[in-house]
């Protein structure tokens, strides 16, 4: 059997067994829910463009609604106008929530309190329409009325800009996701290695295929699973975010998605090798806690660094941590998402990360080969390195 065939079989088992596990299915749903909730909350709390339907009855009401529609854009809402015939129908439509509000004569009808922003826009429009009517009766020409009622409005100019806020939001979710996925799937590699050691199935496996094929298959199989979960989460998250108006999905966001996935793959390979080492130096799940905690702490630190970087993406802290391979898989995507990383920096970060992986994977494989059959008390890292040198 070829090495590749062996790796394929191992990948199929790792992926197949895990994707069937209740734990994986639940964690996928939970992560998707969390991200969707963040996306939905961002959309709703952000008060971004919402659409209201206004029922109108009578010509004055139509005029009010039309006027409101023009001014609605400034209030960041969209109005739809629905013609209703008769006060009774208007009342019924409002009660049934067919319309968010109905204008009937002097009344604004709604099921419950009307949304504040909608009421405000409609009230302003009513004042304007009625004032215009009054002025017309006084004999003013339409142009004079317009001038009287629509003085030049204040020009709003936001400093920092909403776009930045949105990008920051995307970057925040990206860093959170990367951090969670790297820990979850890195730990899955570590505990998978320990599971095979502690159940001694490793001996049977190694009588059939080389240790390297087992390690490669495990890392790839779990990685594919992680990539699948992350892609699902990101796609659902983006869909929810754009549905609630939290972000407008455009090229830039899809680009961010690509960046997140790329850094996940690289960060995963980097951390999977380290986590595999933390797994192979112990023989029991109970000992894994202490050997894997330092690795997890580094990831936690990476995430904690990403938060200030979010606020100040061009600080020295940001520049340095987006180059160091331990933190770059979380920090760099944040900077890319907020648009604060130059092409050169991105290339340098990628180059360093890829080079580290190229060094780490063979080292991890040798430590794995040397330590995978050792049972008993946890090995010291130095001891593990010595066995790595001893094998070939």
């Amino acid at each position, binding site marked *: *059997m070829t090495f590749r065939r*062996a790796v394929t*079989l191992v990948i199929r*088992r790792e992926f*197949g*067994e895990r994707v069937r*596990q209740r734990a994986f299915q639940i964690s996928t749903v939970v992560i998707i829910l969390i991200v969707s909730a963040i996306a939905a909350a961002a959309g709703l709390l952000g008060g971004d463009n919402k659409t209201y339907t206004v029922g109108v009855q009578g010509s004055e009401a139509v005029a009010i609604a039309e006027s409101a529609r023009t001014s609605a854009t400034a209030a960041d809402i969209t109005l739809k106008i629905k013609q209703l015939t008769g006060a009774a129908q208007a009342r019924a439509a409002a009660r049934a929530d067919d319309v968010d509000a109905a204008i009937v004569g002097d009344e604004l009808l709604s099921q419950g309190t009307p949304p504040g922003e909608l009421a405000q826009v409609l009230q302003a429009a009513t004042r304007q329409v009625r004032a215009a009517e009054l002025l017309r009766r006084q004999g003013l020409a339409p142009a004079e009325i317009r001038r009287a009622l629509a003085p030049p409005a204040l020009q709003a100019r936001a400093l920092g800009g909403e776009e930045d806020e949105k990008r920051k939001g995307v970057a925040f979710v990206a860093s959170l996701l990367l951090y969670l996925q790297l820990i979850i799937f890195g730990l899955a590699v570590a505990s998978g290695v320990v*599971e*095979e050691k502690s*159940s*001694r*199935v*490793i*001996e*049977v*496996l*190694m*009588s*059939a*295929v*080389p240790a390297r094929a087992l390690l490669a298959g495990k890392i790839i199989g779990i990685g594919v699973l992680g990539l699948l979960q992350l892609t699902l989460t990101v796609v659902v998250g983006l869909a929810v975010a754009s549905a609630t108006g939290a972000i407008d999905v455009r090229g830039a966001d899809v680009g961010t998605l690509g960046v997140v996935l790329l850094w996940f793959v690289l960060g995963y390979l980097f951390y999977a090798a380290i986590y595999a080492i933390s797994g192979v130096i112990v023989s029991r799940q109970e000992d894994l806690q202490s050997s894997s905690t330092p690795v997890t702490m580094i990831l936690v630190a990476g995430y904690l660094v990403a938060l200030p970087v979010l606020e100040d993406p061009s600080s020295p802290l940001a520049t340095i941590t987006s180059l160091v391979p331990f933190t770059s898989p979380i920090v760099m995507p944040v900077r890319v998402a907020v648009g604060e990383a130059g092409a050169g920096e991105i290339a340098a970060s990628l180059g360093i990360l890829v080079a580290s992986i190229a060094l780490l994977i063979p080292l991890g494989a040798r430590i794995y080969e040397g330590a995978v*059959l050792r049972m008993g008390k946890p090995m010291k890292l130095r001891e593990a390195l010595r066995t790595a040198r001893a094998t070939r």
Partner: protein
Amino acid sequence: MLELRDLSRRYGQTVALDGLSLDVPEGEVVGFVGPNGAGKTTAMRIALGVLEPDVGDVRWRGEPITREAQRQFGYMPEERGLYPKMRVDRQLRYFAALHGRADADEAAARWIERLGLAEHAVQRIEELSLGNQQRVQLAAALVHDPPMLILDEPFSGLDPIGTDVMSEVLAERARAGAAVIFSSHQLELVERICDRVAIVNRGRLVASGRVDELRAERSQPRLRVEFDGPGGANGWAEGLAGVRIVGRDDEGLLLELGDGADDQQVLDAARRAGRVRSFAPARPTLSELFREVIAR
């Protein structure tokens, strides 16, 4: 035939194997016995290619062994080696495929049937009783029809029925032409089902061959003399030429006949001493041979 030649292996300061040589012919069952720490597991792992020897080599069918040949071997480790959370059928198919079987599904189904695991096929290993887990373990070692079976303590923890199934399957594989070696501390069992026995101590082979050959090799024959009544208690056997008393109990004596000893003289002496009920050569059990060889 599997040949282990002058294998040595240390773990740090500990010497696990110290020039061990051993043959396992195809079509035979070899019992691999020795005290704990004698190097049995290390030797088996080297035979499987899971471990490299520091010195020495392994040959298979007259040629230096290849990884390809080793991957065809079936192995049952001492502490059970199965995925606790994986279904029985998937597990067996996986092992069959890893050993290069194209017909992994059929092979798994066949062994599930053969070892009476049909009703447990879709259960996870951790849901099974220990006895059934052990059957799955055996199936995992056999699922790819290995020409060489290496089993580390396959009988430990088995109930009598499990023991019968295991012995039957091992004998059947040997009849089908496979070379079979297993380690065990249950020496009566080894004596009963093995064609040959290899005894190791401190990393070296100290005796090997058929059990009767091992008995014959023992230089000093022994006699068991039993009496009706207390005749055995007095000192009738002391002073007989070449005779040494090696055991004494309420029923009689166990004597070792050295140079110049004459069993007829011993019988006469015994009859003078009391009423002899039984006078027979003592066939040493494997356990006794084992203790003697290890004590040497």
